[in-house]
């Protein structure tokens, strides 16, 4: 590196770090507060140096309804991911390998259903759920999550299948593979990565989902999103515990997010940015 490059490089590095820390600050503050006592949490001026404690986490764990909500989040996220994959994978497979003139239109139509605002379906879905007795049920939430994420899953799996070179499949055919053999021995192993990242993205989106969770559930089927939301009225001395609860609620997903950056870009922009 030439010496004349040093100052700009230094400025750039310092600038990038400064901005990153600034942007991350609210999240970082949340993490710090989770390890404080309640008194430390509301201390004025705010404390940066303190003795960390794990009391908040154990306290939150002891509250059984936290575990209930966490369990609901897990069930609805996993459920919608698995069901979504089961529905989306065959459809994507069909569109990638048995392409017809209408394939493109169907794919575009599927994407367009994702683009409609959820609020447009709020009333009918609420009424339907109420009529079917499914209000405040995990079933309703899982179904709605699945359908919300289905277009993105179909798109991402389609993309993954298309990445498999056609000639490899032809080679399998010449080697005597039936359609099922082709799928089992060639397509499946080569698309496992795509399936995993699609599932991961669906997991993230379902876990964070707030609109439907808040509107379709209350006491029994509430997810972590609803639990957190119920703390919206200030109750004074409880911020440390709230931070701990929040941290536990978001930590796995944020970590997943770090690993699925590329898939996120592809999935949420429907492949328009590569």
């Amino acid at each position, binding site marked *: 590196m030439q010496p004349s490059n040093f100052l700009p490089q230094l400025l*750039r590095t310092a600038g*990038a770090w400064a901005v*990153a*820390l600034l*942007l*991350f*600050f*609210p999240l970082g*503050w*949340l993490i710090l*507060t989770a390890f404080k006592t309640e008194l430390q949490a509301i201390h*004025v*001026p*705010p404390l940066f140096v303190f003795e960390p404690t794990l009391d908040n986490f154990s306290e939150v764990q002891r509250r059984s309804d936290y575990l209930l909500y966490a369990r609901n989040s897990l069930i609805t996220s996993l459920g919608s991911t698995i069901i979504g994959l089961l529905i989306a994978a*065959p*459809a994507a497979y*069909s*569109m990638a390998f*048995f392409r017809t003139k209408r394939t*493109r239109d*169907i794919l*575009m139509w*599927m*994407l367009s*259903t994702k*683009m*409609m*605002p959820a*609020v*447009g*379906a*709020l*009333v*009918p*879905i609420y*009424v*339907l759920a109420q009529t079917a007795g499914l209000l405040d049920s995990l079933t309703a939430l899982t179904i709605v999550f699945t*359908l919300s994420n*289905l*277009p993105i899953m179909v798109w991402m799996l389609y993309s993954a299948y298309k990445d498999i070179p056609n000639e490899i499949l032809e080679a399998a055919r010449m080697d005597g593979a039936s359609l099922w053999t082709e799928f089992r021995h060639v397509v499946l192993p080569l698309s496992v990565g795509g399936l995993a990242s699609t599932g991961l993205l669906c997991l*993230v989106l379902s876990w*964070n989902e707030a609109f439907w969770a*808040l509107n379709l559930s209350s006491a029994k089927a509430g997810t*972590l*999103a609803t639990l957190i*939301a119920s703390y*919206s009225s200030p109750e004074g001395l409880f*911020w440390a515990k709230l931070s701990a609860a*929040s941290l536990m609620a*978001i930590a796995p*997903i*944020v970590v997943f*997010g*770090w690993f699925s950056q590329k898939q*996120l*870009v592809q999935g*949420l*922009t429907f*492949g328009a*940015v590569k």
Partner: protein
Amino acid sequence: MNRLLPRALMAPAVLTLFLWMIVPLVMTLYFSFVSYNLMQPGDHPFVGIENFQYFITDPDFWPATWNTLLLIGSVIVITVVFGVLLALLVNEPFPGRGIVRVLLISPFFVMPAVNALLWKHMMMNPIYGVLADLWRFFGAQPVDWLTDVPLLSVIIMVAWQWLPFACLIFITSLQSLDREQMEAARMDGASSFQRFFYLIIPHLGRPMAVVIMIEMIFLLSVFAEIAITTNGGPGNESTNLTYLIFKQSLMNFDVGVASAGALFAVVVANIVAVFLIRIVGKNLD
């Protein structure tokens, strides 16, 4: 067999998505033309366009529309402008780049509910919040964010969450920038600023369009942040269309009017979606 199998494979997805699209749409259409209140059992007489009139003449309607536009517009401007700048900053390698990227990306994956509470209690609380401390540090009177500037507070929260998204998109796109083109421009004597304007901005044109449109679609549905922090208030100062419809349907229980409003939102979203689909479609083959 050759024609049946593909159709059978696609059937579940196509069928469920079709129902997911059609059933709510038809129901909403129906509800918008009848008088239906969840609290009042009985039949639903046809009322023509009364619901639409009611929705539009609701004193909250125009403020909500205006707020929606303001919210979407501000967040888009903030995220795109700073997203581009940040992406450029992080584009070249430097020590700790990986960690910086992780830090920058994180806010996007935070649950909107946590996001709302984080800002409401941690940052914006006028007594105990971090921002209040900061204001006091500089000798100024802390701002009561959620009461005095509710819409701005919501804008800040949402922009904080979506900035990483825009940033990530632009970072990805910058990686496909043609190095040789930049070098040729440098040899032709173009300054950094000129290279930025004539090469980088056009290259980012497409991702910018995609970011703007995706954000338009998702920002139209901003809900959790408002519901958890300001409840649309004070008054209707931070109510957006989505919250207004929610209020009508699940708080006033007036399904008819809410449906009229929902149709309005769907039309708006449709317009944006048409453009987005065209861009995505070009990329599909």
